């Protein structure tokens, strides 16, 4: 019996459906929030290790409760709404950032069939939600009525918008192989796709550059170093977040890290075979797909932290140059190459879904 089926039997069609989906949603939302706390801790520990420091080690065993202590502190702080700010938009902006960072998880397949909404256009849904992420930032920058926040918001919006373009083209190449916009289909299309034994688009020489570009684009989209221009502490004193305090600030923080975690989950789904083991060998399937998925996520997160610990920040003109003059033409050209290769080697002869 399915999960929803059990609820429907217990509580009737309407209420049962509602309760089943509500529990599923909470089962995604709470782990994401706790995951953010752990991710912040892991982040700080990894930088500390790379810089020969200890990192947080006081609160709780190995300092693991440090983030929870920070969150509790923020929660108890007073919310300051600057006198010059437009109150409504000012409070709406962090809510938008946070809500979008949560709802984007609705289409993520954690394991075979383990997905809240298995949409036909799952990839487009992700693209749509992530393209709306700009709003939280522009609105906070404008509403704060502070020059630092305003500049930070503008910079951030232009940056995210620039990298979204090449992100779209990279997605096109991936969906061309899977012949589908459904994330589960995209994962399944990667099963044994290279030499019949490797699971994952990244092992495909035609998609390997796309995978690398997508990783860098993901760094830029989530405002991670080396692309953390919007909050450059030295020049903009945290950019669009400068006027925020208490939980409104915490929501930006939560949203930002939830987005990073999401990117760490999306890259495996698109390029590393999602919940599939890296090699298409029967005994590897004994380990549940969920475990593979989480370990791939953890690996990607380590890469994100590694980049942050080692790469210096880009200057703004360099950032724009990379987005418009390198990634855009390259990804556009690569779409032509990949589609041409697939077209003239007969990839499209078989109807999709039959592969």
């Amino acid at each position, binding site marked *: 019996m399915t999960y929803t089926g059990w609820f429907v039997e217990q509580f009737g069609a309407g209420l049962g459906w509602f309760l089943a989906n509500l529990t599923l949603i909470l089962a995604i939302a709470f782990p994401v929030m706790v995951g953010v706390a752990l991710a912040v801790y892991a982040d700080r520990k990894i930088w500390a290790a790379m810089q020969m420091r200890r990192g947080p080690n006081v609160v709780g065993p190995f300092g693991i409760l440090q983030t929870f202590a920070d969150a509790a502190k923020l929660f108890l702080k007073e919310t300051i709404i600057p006198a010059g700010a437009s109150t409504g938009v000012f409070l709406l902006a962090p809510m938008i950032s946070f809500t979008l960072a949560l709802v984007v998880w609705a289409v993520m397949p954690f394991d075979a069939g383990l997905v809240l909404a298995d949409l036909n256009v799952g990839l487009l849904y992700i693209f749509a939600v992530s393209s709306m992420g700009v709003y939280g930032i522009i609105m906070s920058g404008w509403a704060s009525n502070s020059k630092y926040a305003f500049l930070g918001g503008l910079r951030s919006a232009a940056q995210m918008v620039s990298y979204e373009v090449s992100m779209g083209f990279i997605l096109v190449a991936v969906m061309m192989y899977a012949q589908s916009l459904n994330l589960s289909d995209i994962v399944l299309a990667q099963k044994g796709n290279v030499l019949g034994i490797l699971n994952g688009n990244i092992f495909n020489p035609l998609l390997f550059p796309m995978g690398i570009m997508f990783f860098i684009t993901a760094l830029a989209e989530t405002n991670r170093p080396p692309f953390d221009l919007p909050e450059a502490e030295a020049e903009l004193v945290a950019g669009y977040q400068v006027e925020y305090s208490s939980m409104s600030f915490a929501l930006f923080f939560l949203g930002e890290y939830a987005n990073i975690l999401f990117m760490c989950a999306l890259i495996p789904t698109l390029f590393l075979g999602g919940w599939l083991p890296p090699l298409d060998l029967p005994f590897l399937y004994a380990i549940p797909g969920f475990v593979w998925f989480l370990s791939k996520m953890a690996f990607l997160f380590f890469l994100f932290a590694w980049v942050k610990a080692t790469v210096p920040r880009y200057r703004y003109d360099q950032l724009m140059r990379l987005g418009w003059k390198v990634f855009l033409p390259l990804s556009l050209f690569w*779409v032509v190459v990949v589609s041409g290769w697939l077209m003239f080697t007969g990839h499209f002869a078989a109807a999709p879904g039959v592969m």
Partner: protein
Amino acid sequence: MSAIASEYLPVLLFFAVGIAFALIFVSAPIAVSALTGTAKPEAVKLSEYESGFPAFSDARAKFDVQFYLVAILFIVFDLEAAFLFPWAVSLHWGGESAWWAMMEFLGELAIGLVYAWKVGALEWE
């Protein structure tokens, strides 16, 4: 209701849950501090941050036209990507003629990109 629309109901519910969480997180500290009387707003606390000086002018000023140009170029390329999405998943039906059609489309846009590059519109100054 069509089968497709009912697939989206969980997403709608997720939006509702997310907004509810956000509302609680934002309003709870405000409400608690207002009710317990710990909120003590004062003029200096409420003024915007500007390196310790009072702000000289309104922050919402005119700014560089380059930002608009980036936004317009983004719209053009976003639309181009939007045309690529259905194309990428339907080449089985479209076949070679669809492929050549897209090459022609991309060619037109490539001309635009080359033009933008040549006049220096992609350069950030």
